[in-house]
């Protein structure tokens, strides 16, 4: 046989000297598959372990206190008070306020990034704001307590009280700086980058032709965004808002450092100190003496977990439904 022909009678052609290789690791694939499933399943294991451990350790508190935490305001173990309402109220209030600030800001920034500036500028600005998402909570806390709080207490809050707004009850009381207002603002800055990034991504996916059709009909930039782009983007943005909500609910360090640790009352004014579930947890834990107290704190952690889990589940369901309706992978 000439050197140019390939001999196919022996596997590997005429050049092969050895016997054909067998796949000696024949059970390699099923093993691999099971290994990877096991790894993937650890997250489920972790979650069940989490729930189990939290429930087990809050059992004491649940048993002894019953429904009392959900009906009482003050948390003061020294005087045998274990109310969670002050914490729950603060969590919801700061979260809602933070969202009210962050969502419009995020949409405005996303509009700019997608429609108003040169793509290069959009990337630079977008990246800068995404970097804000990488800043750890403790840094926000440091900045919050040493810079923002004095600023609020000495300048901004008195200024607000000097305007007609000051007559409103929610801006009353003597400004302390470490209050719900400051905490909400810091919190809003922490969730802003995430919502902005998702909004921008979703808005960028609106098909160009449809936007051109809108502009072609004589619409302004705002009209195209509001009447056309938002219809594509709404589902994705709503999902981002839900997820942002989830994060805001669980945010601990920065909030703890600027909210004022008022575990005892529900604040009447934004300029009063308050607390959140995570702040109560973080601030009371080092002092925790008795088993009951520890257990009640773990119960608070459990409550927080349940709340954030509900939001996660609702967000996932919403997003899945929205994806089905628009057929997109937003």
């Amino acid at each position, binding site marked *: 046989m000439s050197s140019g022909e390939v001999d196919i009678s022996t596997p590997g052609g005429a050049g092969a000297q050895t016997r054909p290789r067998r796949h000696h690791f024949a059970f390699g694939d099923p093993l691999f598959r099971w290994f990877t499933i096991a790894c993937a399943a650890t997250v489920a294991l972790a979650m069940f372990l989490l729930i189990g451990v939290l429930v087990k350790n809050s059992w004491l508190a649940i048993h002894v206190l019953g429904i009392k935490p959900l009906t009482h305001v003050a948390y003061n173990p020294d005087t045998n008070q274990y109310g969670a309402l002050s914490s729950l109220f603060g969590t919801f209030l700061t979260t809602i306020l933070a969202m009210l600030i962050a969502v419009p800001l995020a949409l405005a920034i996303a509009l700019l990034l997608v429609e108003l500036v040169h793509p290069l500028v959009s990337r630079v600005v977008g990246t800068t704001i995404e970097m804000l998402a990488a800043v750890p909570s403790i840094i926000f806390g440091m900045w919050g307590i040493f810079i923002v709080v004095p600023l609020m207490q000495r300048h901004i809050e008195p200024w607000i009280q000097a305007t007609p707004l000051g007559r409103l009850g929610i801006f009353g009381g003597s400004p302390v700086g470490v209050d719900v207002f400051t905490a909400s603002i810091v919190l809003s800055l922490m969730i802003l980058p995430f919502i902005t990034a998702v909004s921008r991504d979703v808005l960028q996916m609106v098909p160009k032709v*449809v936007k*051109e059709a809108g502009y*072609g009909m004589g619409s302004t930039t705002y009209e195209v965004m509001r009447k056309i782009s938002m219809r594509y983007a709404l589902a994705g943005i709503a999902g981002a808002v839900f997820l942002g909500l989830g994060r805001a609910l669980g945010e601990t360090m920065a909030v703890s450092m600027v909210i004022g640790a008022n575990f005892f009352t529900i604040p009447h004014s934004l300029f009063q100190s308050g607390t959140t579930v995570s702040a109560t947890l973080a601030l009371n834990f080092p002092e925790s003496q008795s088993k009951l107290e520890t257990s009640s704190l773990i119960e608070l952690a459990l409550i927080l977990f349940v709340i954030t889990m509900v939001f996660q589940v609702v967000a996932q369901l919403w997003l899945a439904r929205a994806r089905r309706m628009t057929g997109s992978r937003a």
Partner: protein
Amino acid sequence: MVDIMDTIEPGAESAVDRPLPPRLEVTPGVASYDTPAQFDALPSKLSVHDLDFFYGKEQALFANDLEIKEHRVTAIIGPSGCGKSTHLRCYNRIYELYRDQKAMGEIAFDGANILAPGTDLLSLRRRIGMIFQKPSPFPMTVFDNIAYGLRMHFKLSKSELSERVEDALKRGALWEEVKNKLNEPGLALSGGQQQRLCIARAIAAEPELILMDEPCSAIDPVGTAKIEELLQELKSSYTIVLVTHNMQQAARVSDYTAFFFEGRIIEFGATTQIFEKPVQRQTEEYITGRFG
């Protein structure tokens, strides 16, 4: 700011109210419709003088001159990449959405240069409608799609709005097919229907000039035939410029044809003349399929 609304004659509120031009004479055996004298006498809806266009540093259009006559269908043909769509998109300045695209020269719309800096783009784009190659219904119901332009540019009562929507759909030859589907999403219609929806949507806002950028290339033959039929009806009320890579379509549907090649207008004339007795060699080569 030059308000382009100032160029509308008083009393002529909308395109459908305007006086019709003299009817085209079709004399069997004669190679053109309008005689040259008639052509010159017809008002030009759009007059292009010395139009240059740049994508960044690269020039795409070179000294284009064109007269688009009222109530006529003008077709723009040429091989792909020759600048047909680029040229068309200058008419409503839609290219301005993209930073590195630039047009220079003069485009006189009813006498006023729309490339001038002070032009009111919002009004311009109401008076010029555009249909794109890919049907692009807005993500809304059929009704809301048609009502989009109406709601944006005019103050109408609910009943007036419904009337106008129905009217636009009838003029767009779509009413019979969608009259029971007004509240369904526009995207639920077939491709050909979506494109007619886009046409009806453009008409609803009472434009005077309609630009069509290869409107049938994404549509099946049946849908295409319906749209071509529609074009003949629309001609009496609007001026139409049609970019197409389908020569037969241009021959079927248009009154005048401009042949583009590599960013330049090689020849412009009555459609029958272009297709039967082209003057330029390049035109003839394209028509006979020697390149494309």
